[in-house]
């Protein structure tokens, strides 16, 4: 049992993820390529501003920024989309006899799939810059915590949104702010001493950093970083567990 659902439901979750992507891109000319174009444009814009104009002193800046930006984009988009998964799917949920959490997990997996597609582009880029590919084995270690975190927090916010419709708006504001407190367009080492705490106690920063260490630093994450990520994931799972009783009541509030 994971997230309160039977592992046999995996097929249904994958189906919901596929449907989510199909619904999003059906009829569009570029289809799934849109999921690449958006991030690529942002990466290009950030690279121009911080690398070319401001000349941030960081070797292989584009790789560092992309390695942080893509997981960030996945987690923030997945959590925000998940937050409305129940209220937007009211008509389906009130006719459904499966655990509602499958809708949210499917939503997050759809976002994860687009992240993997984007990483497919990043991979040869990183291999070229880094000159070796041994660190590829460390990628699942870096991505798995992001996925579990996004599912757990996605479930929490989806449940809370049924009761408080402000949550998605609040998340939008919070992620907008949190982006700049997370070392994505800059490096940890640039943070002044008085601002270090902001980075240290930012859960997203740890999950983003583990990816940057693997992709950009070509290293296995340090024990401290791995432990930090484990704590973040653990707390998110506890929050999910805490919010699970709401699942039984939310259908009356939809």
């Amino acid at each position, binding site marked *: 049992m994971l997230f309160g659902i039977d592992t046999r439901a995996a097929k249904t979750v994958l189906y919901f993820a596929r449907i989510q992507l199909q619904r999003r891109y059906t009829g569009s000319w570029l289809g799934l390529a849109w999921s690449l174009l958006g991030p690529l444009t942002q990466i290009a814009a950030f690279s121009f501003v911080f690398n070319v104009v401001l000349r941030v002193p960081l070797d292989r800046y584009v790789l560092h920024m992309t390695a942080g930006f893509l997981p960030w984009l996945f987690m923030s988009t997945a959590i925000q989309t998940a937050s409305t998964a129940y209220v937007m799917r009211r008509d*389906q949920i009130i006719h459904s006899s499966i655990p509602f959490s499958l809708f949210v997990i499917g939503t997050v997996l759809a976002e994860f799939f687009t992240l993997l597609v984007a990483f497919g582009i990043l991979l040869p880029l990183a291999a070229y810059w880094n000159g070796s590919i041994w660190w590829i084995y460390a990628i699942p270690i870096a991505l798995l915590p992001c996925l579990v975190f996004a599912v757990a927090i996605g479930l929490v916010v989806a449940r*809370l949104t049924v009761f408080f419709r402000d949550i998605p708006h609040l998340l939008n504001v919070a992620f907008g702010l949190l982006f700049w407190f997370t070392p994505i367009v800059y490096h940890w080492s640039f943070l002044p001493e008085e601002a270090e705490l902001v980075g240290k106690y930012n859960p997203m920063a740890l999950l983003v950093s583990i990816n940057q260490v693997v992709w950009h630093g070509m290293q296995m994450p340090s024990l401290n970083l791995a432990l930090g990520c484990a704590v973040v994931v653990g707390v998110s799972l506890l929050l999910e567990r805490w919010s699970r009783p709401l699942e039984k009541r939310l259908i009356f509030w939809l």
Partner: protein
Amino acid sequence: MTPSVHLKNVDIQYPLSKHGSLKQALVGGRTWDAQPQRWKPALRDISLKIDAPQKIGIIGRNASGKTTLLQVIAGILPPQSGNRHVIGKIAAIIAAGVGFDTALSVRENVRFAMAMSGRLHECTEDYIRKILDFIELQGDGWQPLQTLSLGFQSRLAFAVGLFQTPEIFLLDEAFSAGDALFVRKARAAMKERMASSPISIFVSHVESELIETCERGVWLEDGRIVADGPIDQVLKDYGKMNS
């Protein structure tokens, strides 16, 4: 195991004021799990024991709790108090529609509806073909559902529930649309399904249909069970009360 439905002291009530805002929670003193001030009871202290084989007809006036009762049995609504214990695979045709996604194709909606009832693995090409044939849809079902008339969408909702092979079959006044010819065909198929399912629970206002298909009747009034017994006796009492 023999299919069965056991409900014990089940209560269901709906909040009259729905979702709140964070402002209410933070400033207005309402916490996220606070009970709303007003609730509307839909089912009150319902106890029901159904063991296979049995065909049950549920009667009652509008808003008496019939659909809510089926939703509880189907596992859609969890009891707020009391217990629900069900053994057996369920197929339910409750109200119009099954939460279709109109942007998806007709075929995809069949799969989607099966996924929502936890039976995606049963959704084979044969199953989809049978449904498309039954609803008499022209083409191969790749057209978006939104291009179909409401009548065809209702046909599809009915057929998706009908072609499952359940041990417990729930049916809620399903014939909301369709021409006379289709309604006749759907009624015949429904009777066949009711006969082949170990447990069938049928909500209807049509006395002749209830007498023809059911042996036991349950009369609901204001969320409570008023009578439970042989269908003809329950219908007689219900008729007297409403005459």
